[in-house]
């Protein structure tokens, strides 16, 4: 098959892959289109997995995504891409088959960071939560009525899982090295509100605690976690919620700038070769893509959120079909949502990742758990978060995107005075890495 006949291959059949394929068709691409996915499932939506699927309100297979354009695609599902040969313009799949491409869109996303087997990760009853099969297994285990659920990691997924488990009436212990939940994404000042929610919901929260290893019973099932402070938590079901690593293993040996933090692209989402020059026929989008975002001075970042998968895939698809002199840069203001403990949380911008030095409530109050808070850095507004005040958020998102003063809106008739607080972000992790806006 000639390269032109091979057409466009999209590797990754989740949200970014699907939305990228739709955009290719919407922009008039009429050639051969192939989607490759490691899971046997059609593209499905992930956010409900850690909420309504765990609670049992939705079946794990209920969240198949709608197609927003006729795809007329070939589907290669259930076989991961395992290698990329740029010289041959072909990828190899896990079943040994080889798939030629004319142009390639990399949208392989990320995978849950597992607990190491050497410290008990292979025991029965230890789960991660990323895909639909993970959610189905975990849901079945939760429905079996464990004596105590231990959740390791109080990021968004860990907190959402804790909220679901309490809704199910299960005893829950949540462990995190930081002083509050959501400390890395929202800071301890805002995270303290969720700490209060945890307490009210009856979750046992071990702040500043670190799990060293898991120990099992005679049948090889997890029985307890040993903590760094010498304590232990008895638990027969463990959810490891320690974020994700980018699915780039299959690209090792392809001569690209790719590692566990993502595959590096230029501003137009073209993947960079190891020598730093963009590959004209390979693009990336979604969780796996690391690109210089013009909204942050061209700093390299990857954004592991739903909205970025949608927008970046559409942008990359547009550029894939455009001539080389019309490659447009991808600007993106990160945004995410979560719901937990009955609160709708929505955020825009980068707070810790962009060095927030202050936070202030600009609508509502922390005590009521209904508020809008703005994060500032050096007198500019850089991010905003809403707790059950979503309708205010678009106005602040505009102010954040425009880099307006902190706080940006000062004289609304329903506002009180402002008190800027320290946001309380934990110190960065040891190794300096490019920015990651993540859901962990």
């Amino acid at each position: 098959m000639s390269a032109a006949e091979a057409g466009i291959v999209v590797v990754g059949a989740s949200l970014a892959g699907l939305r990228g394929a739709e955009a290719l068709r919407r922009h008039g691409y009429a050639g051969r289109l192939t989607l490759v996915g490691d899971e046997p499932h059609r593209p499905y939506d992930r956010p409900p997995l850690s909420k309504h699927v765990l609670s049992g309100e939705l079946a794990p297979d209920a969240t198949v995504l709608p197609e927003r354009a006729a795809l007329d695609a070939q589907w290669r599902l259930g076989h991961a891409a395992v290698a990329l040969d740029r010289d041959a313009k072909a990828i190899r799949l896990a079943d040994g088959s080889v798939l030629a491409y004319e142009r390639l869109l990399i949208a392989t996303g990320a995978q849950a960071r597992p607990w190491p087997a050497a410290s008990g990760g292979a025991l029965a009853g230890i789960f991660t939560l990323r895909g639909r099969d993970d959610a189905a297994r975990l849901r079945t285990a939760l429905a079996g009525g464990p004596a105590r659920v231990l959740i390791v990691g109080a990021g968004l997924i860990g907190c959402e899982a804790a909220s679901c488990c309490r809704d199910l009436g299960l005893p829950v212990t949540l462990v995190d090295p930081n002083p509050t939940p959501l400390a890395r994404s929202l800071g301890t000042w805002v995270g303290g509100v969720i700490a209060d929610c945890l307490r009210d919901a009856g979750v046992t929260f071990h702040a500043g605690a670190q799990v060293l290893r898991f120990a099992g019973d005679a049948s090889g099932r997890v029985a307890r976690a040993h903590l760094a402070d010498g304590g232990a938590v008895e638990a027969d079901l463990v959810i490891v919620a320690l974020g994700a690593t980018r699915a780039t293993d299959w690209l090792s040996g392809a001569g690209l700038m790719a590692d566990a933090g993502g595959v590096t692209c230029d501003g137009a989402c073209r993947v960079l070769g190891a020598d730093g020059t963009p590959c004209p026929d390979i693009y990336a989008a979604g969780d796996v893509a690391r690109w210089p975002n013009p909204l942050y001075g061209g700093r390299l970042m990857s954004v592991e959120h739903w909205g970025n998968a949608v927008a970046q895939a559409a942008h990359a698809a547009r550029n894939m079909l455009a001539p080389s002199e019309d490659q447009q840069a991808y600007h993106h203001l990160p945004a995410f949502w979560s719901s937990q403990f009955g609160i709708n949380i929505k955020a825009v911008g980068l707070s810790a990742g962009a060095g927030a030095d202050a936070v202030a409530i600009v609508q509502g109050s922390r005590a009521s758990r209904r508020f809008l808070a703005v994060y500032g850095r050096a007198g500019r507004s850089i991010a905003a978060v809403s707790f059950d005040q979503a309708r205010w958020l678009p106005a602040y998102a505009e102010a954040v995107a425009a880099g307006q003063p902190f706080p940006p809106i000062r004289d609304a008739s329903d506002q009180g005075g402002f008190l800027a607080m320290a946001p309380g972000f934990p110190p960065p992790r040891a190794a300096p890495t490019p920015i990651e806006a993540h859901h962990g």
Partner: protein
Amino acid sequence: MTDPIASAPGEAAPLRVVVDLNRCQGYAQCCYAAPGAFEVRGHEILFYDPAPPRARRGEIERAVQACPVRAISLQADRGDTP
């Protein structure tokens, strides 16, 4: 290039719905247009059925139209991914 899991959609296949919850502002118009398929919990958490039965197609389409921020996507017809 056979599809290992293709199956005939048939009239019984559910609709497919997804809501962009970044866009959603909690106006709850979908809940009036299609009660039972969309529901607001607490102050503004939208819970919805991503796979409503085909018999609800009319009301789901009204919900799509009623959303002031155009956050709801619906696939009612057979597509590539039955």
